[in-house]
């Protein structure tokens, strides 16, 4: 296959990936716009897409600042959660005792609704970005932990034996075998956590952030509701979704770069 036709097929490949969802989105927006024009509900209940777009344009500086604030809290929370999740997951995978003792508790803690304990975070971390980050960490840590644990426990016993025959230390076995073996699974967990971290950050902002010169997405939503600016709420929610999508995309990209050469999931 020559260079040009290969490039052509790649372009067609990404078009294949993008065009169907794009079509669906455009159709949905058209239907939404049409329904709003037809039934004319109050702007306060459901704004039309064009109204949301207008709100986005008018408040773009505030929205950009909000996206940056929420996005950076979520990203920091995500990184902390990734570190804690991989570390704890590795520890649990290494010790049957820890695993038996801690994993059920971790699973139970995971069931505690964040929204219910978010006000407590304010008590512990105070108003401000620390509560936001803590909230992001709490929601995104479990998927990474579970994925790390599962990935490591599924290590090929033949390879474990190979390491044992060569008298590998525990640390060598972890670093050179179990961790790389678990990476496909960890990447899957991280992708789930990336999206969750934005949700966690916004919940944290609802209860624990304050409005300053610039407000994060959570505060923007709350104050837009108070001002009956539903169009701005929709705009802020869209921005939050984009932030989540961007984080997810970055994690997927890093995962793909790590795995593309040897793992089928990146093919």
């Amino acid at each position, binding site marked *: 296959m020559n260079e040009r036709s290969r490039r052509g097929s790649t372009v067609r490949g990404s078009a294949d990936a993008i065009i169907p969802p794009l079509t669906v989105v455009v159709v949905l927006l058209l239907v939404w716009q049409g329904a709003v024009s037809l039934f004319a509900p109050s702007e306060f209940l459901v704004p039309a897409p064009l109204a949301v777009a207008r709100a986005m344009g008018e408040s773009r500086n505030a929205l950009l600042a909000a996206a940056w604030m929420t996005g950076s809290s979520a990203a920091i929370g995500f990184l902390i959660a990734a570190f804690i999740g991989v570390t704890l997951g590795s520890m649990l995978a290494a010790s049957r005792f820890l695993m038996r003792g801690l994993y059920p508790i971790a699973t139970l803690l995971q069931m505690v609704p964040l929204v219910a304990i978010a006000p407590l975070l304010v008590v512990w971390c105070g108003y401000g970005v620390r509560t936001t980050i803590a909230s992001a960490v709490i929601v995104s840590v479990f998927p990474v932990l579970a994925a790390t644990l599962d990935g490591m426990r599924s290590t*090929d016993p*033949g390879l474990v034996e190979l390491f044992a025959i*060569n008298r*590998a230390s525990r640390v060598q076995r972890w670093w050179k*075998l179990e961790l790389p073996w678990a990476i496909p699974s960890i990447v899957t967990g991280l992708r789930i956590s990336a999206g969750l971290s934005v949700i966690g950050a916004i919940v944290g902002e609802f209860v624990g952030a304050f409005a300053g010169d610039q407000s994060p997405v959570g505060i923007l939503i709350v104050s837009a509701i108070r001002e009956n600016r539903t169009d701005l709420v929709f705009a802020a929610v869209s921005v939050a979704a984009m932030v989540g999508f961007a984080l997810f995309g970055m994690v997927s990209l890093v995962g793909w770069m790590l795995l593309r050469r040897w793992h089928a999931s990146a093919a």
Partner: protein
Amino acid sequence: MLQRIELSHLGRVYEDGCVALAGASLELRAGSITVLVGPSGCGKTTLLRLIGGLDAPTSGRVLFHGAEGLLVQPRTAFAFQEPRLLPWRTVLANVALPLELAGVPVAERAERATAMLKRVGLGNAARKLPGQLSGGMRMRASIARALVTAPQLLLLDEPFGAVDEIARHALDDLLRSLWSELGMTVVMVTHSIVEATYVGERVVVMAPAPGRIVAEFSPQFMDRSSALRATPEFAAVTAEVLRALGEAMVEEHS
């Protein structure tokens, strides 16, 4: 320096009561190449693992005799039926793994692994990932990794069981030449009578239920090369091995 390996009434009864091996005795001269052959479940893998210290016997013992009645601990390497390569490492890094785990400096291990890869005919594949190799090439990499530590004892459990017959013949030739060049003691397990007869200086026939040694052959051939497999002398020896195997199976059924 290892002089001989003595297996004395080796037995292994598994926890579920299965007698995988009932009192096998065998003496292996250092530098010899021995092949264990027998039907599935006759305790070949069990015996090999006992020799390599991956498992402990429930009776009897394995003794490694050195010079002047001293006991020694030989450097031992394994190769298994599956190549057991790490899919994220290049072939070179896979072969260097045992040296890396033993703390050998980077430059030295790269040099030794490269030399061993060349020796098994994978000089050009050093930078490839295992996923890019054929089954036979993966097996060569696995053998190279076993030999990179310069073991005194090489234990092979059906190493070429998963490759096609033509590739297997080439691998058998490679094994023979590595053995005569490096001089380590080799114990290999196989299902294939042709492979056993071709590779083995000594062929040990085993039978199941309970696992035991039933016969032994020392095929003497003037010249071991691919053409040997088609000669009448070779066919005569394989027939004898086959007969021994058949007799063992009949005994079991009566």
